[in-house]
């Protein structure tokens, strides 16, 4: 049985301001989910909270990953358990090459499993990196560049996918991976994700637009408004949203509340 990420009645505040107000969601390995919603609905808050960003305070609820409540766990522990966040805004790390960084990330995993581990042998690492770069149609010279330093928007997002390919997470959250990408870059990134799809990878695609979902086809679509998931359905829901916007949902909410 695969691992699952279960979000139960999650409440999150930022600087004392409640943003998430009871989110419930289950993403299983092998499934692709899309989470859509207007600006400010709490999508990125959810992504950052799942990864344990210190600025986001869980005030109630649980995040169960692989049967463990991870709310109290450090960010690096969550990652080593197999949770991955593709950042909306990957930060530059000057002086640290993509390859060096990835070797550190892989070695951190190995060391957590076996404190005696001496780290992945360099030739083995190089082979793995080249293989994943080829899979994602990336130039091998990419590994020698400083991480996200001077990268174009498209390169940053591709670097995120490369990291995902190297670290082989069980559940990946993609936070607005489509933002700032032109159609060609979007296609390249989406193709990369599709190559990683399989029974061992669950994905939560967080997006503002339907566009990326033409390339990464989800099985489940959820809509978030004002810190809650207000509608869940199949792929049709995204298309419906594209056509009708969020207005009908707002009305439905208002009527439901009345």
């Amino acid at each position: 049985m695969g691992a699952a990420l279960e979000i139960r009645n999650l409440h999150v505040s930022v600087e004392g301001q409640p943003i998430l107000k009871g989110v419930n969601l289950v993403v299983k390995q092998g499934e692709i989910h899309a989470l859509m919603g207007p600006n400010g609905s709490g999508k990125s808050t959810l992504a950052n909270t799942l990864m344990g960003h210190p600025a986001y305070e869980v005030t109630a609820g649980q995040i169960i990953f692989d049967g463990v409540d991870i709310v109290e766990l450090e960010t690096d522990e969550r990652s080593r358990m197999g949770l991955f966040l593709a950042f909306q805004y990957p930060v530059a790390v000057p002086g640290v090459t993509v390859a060096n960084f990835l070797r550190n990330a892989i070695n951190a995993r190995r060391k957590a499993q076996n404190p005696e581990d001496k780290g992945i042998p360099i030739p083995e690492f190089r082979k793995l990196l080249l293989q994943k770069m080829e899979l994602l149609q990336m130039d091998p010279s990419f590994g020698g560049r400083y991480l996200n330093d001077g990268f174009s928007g498209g390169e940053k997002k591709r670097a995120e996918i490369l990291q995902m390919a190297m670290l082989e997470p069980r559940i990946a959250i993609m936070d607005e991976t489509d933002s700032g990408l032109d159609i060609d870059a979007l296609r390249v990134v989406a193709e990369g994700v599709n190559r990683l799809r399989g029974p061992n990878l669950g994905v939560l695609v967080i997006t503002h637009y339907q566009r990326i979902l033409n390339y990464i086809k989800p099985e489940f679509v959820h809509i978030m408004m004002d810190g809650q998931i207000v509608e869940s359905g199949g792929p049709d829901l995204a298309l419906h949203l594209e056509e009708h916007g969020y207005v009908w949902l707002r009305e439905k909410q208002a009527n439901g509340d009345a």
Partner: protein
Amino acid sequence: MATRRRVAREFQAPPLSRADVLALSERLNEPDWLREQRLAAWDLYESLPMPTTQDEAWRRTDYRHIDWESAGHLSANGGGARFEDIPAASRQPLLGDEQGAMLAFVNDHLVHHEVAPGLREQGVIVTDLHTAVREHADLVRTHLMTHAVTPDIDKFAALHAALWTHGVFVYVPRGVQATLPAHSIFYTTQPAATLGHLLIVLEEGTRLDYLHESLSPTLNADASFIGVVELIVGPGANLRFVNLQDWGHHMFEFSHQRARVAADGQLDWVTGQMGGRLVKAFMEIDLDGKGSWGRMSALYFPSGRQFMDLDTQQNHNAAYTTSDLLFKGVLKDEARSVWQGMIKVLPGAQKTDGFQANRNMLMSDKARADSIPGLEIQANDVRCTHASATGQIEEEVIFYLMARGIPRPEAEKLVVDGFFVPVLDRIPFESVRDRMMAYVERKLLGEVN
């Protein structure tokens, strides 16, 4: 064991005297000219005031807590230490297995002297300064504190000229490209004063790679190092000079380091500052000849309650000269650093290009880095620019790295290593780069030597 210290209110001088100068010169059986040079410097020393925080160059450096009772007495000869007592990593050859030249001192005592036959055949001299005074008197007389660091700069320079206890003399004769690097070490084991000197002279059209290291374990009483470095780079000569400092946390360093670069000469100077309780180092490059080039790079990483004050000057004394400075610091705990840098362009030094950049990364909100760039330009056709920035280590970067499974300490190490990379890349010896990274790691883990 912590010792209770008297808190002195005044900027006091060490308890040294003219008799110490005479005794030292006598013990070393020095020639008259040198004894006279020492005595003249002593007279100058006596006429100069101790620097205080009222002096611009010393405004941020308060050394009143130094305990001259221990730090102000000359180190007793050798102290019984041997070459093998110096950490093994420092004694390794710089390139592969082949030692070019190695000169090592423990306290003021020469404990190791090795020059590869290849270098000797080239006519390269690497010897201790006392020997050089006897065997190469003319060369030493020409250069020793006459035109790079002069005794009249301040009281510490004068004190050094009067009482230098040991030193290295390096000479590369005209046209010689040294095939192997040279290396010297000042290691101390006593809570006392040492006054080490480094005099490196490159004649026209020569080339040399050089590493100097100052280090010691931490002792439980204060020590002082009152040092001078003089680098003389002749016309068209090329010197790559690396200077690493990893004193124990009992050490107070006051040093003057100055290079003079003749026409078309090149100096690539990298400094690594890790240790010491308090470091006040003046580093100066004079681009004296047309077309000369000088680069100064530093990485420093004070932690605990360490204090480092690095005072740099890039003097453009001739036309078509280029200087480039990059100083990068990481500070932990309650550490403090000062970088004060001046680019000076003399009248007539047209078409010069001077640059300076200082960047500091703070790993604690109790650490503090002062950054004071300066330009003094008396020519009208020049390009001089500076940049400086100081900020806390970025939590968003740490979060990003941790989100890939890297624990916080390793994430911080990656960020700090990456920060230092532009300076580390300028160190011409891979083994030394690796050692610098190891120093940085030790600092991050909070281990003090």
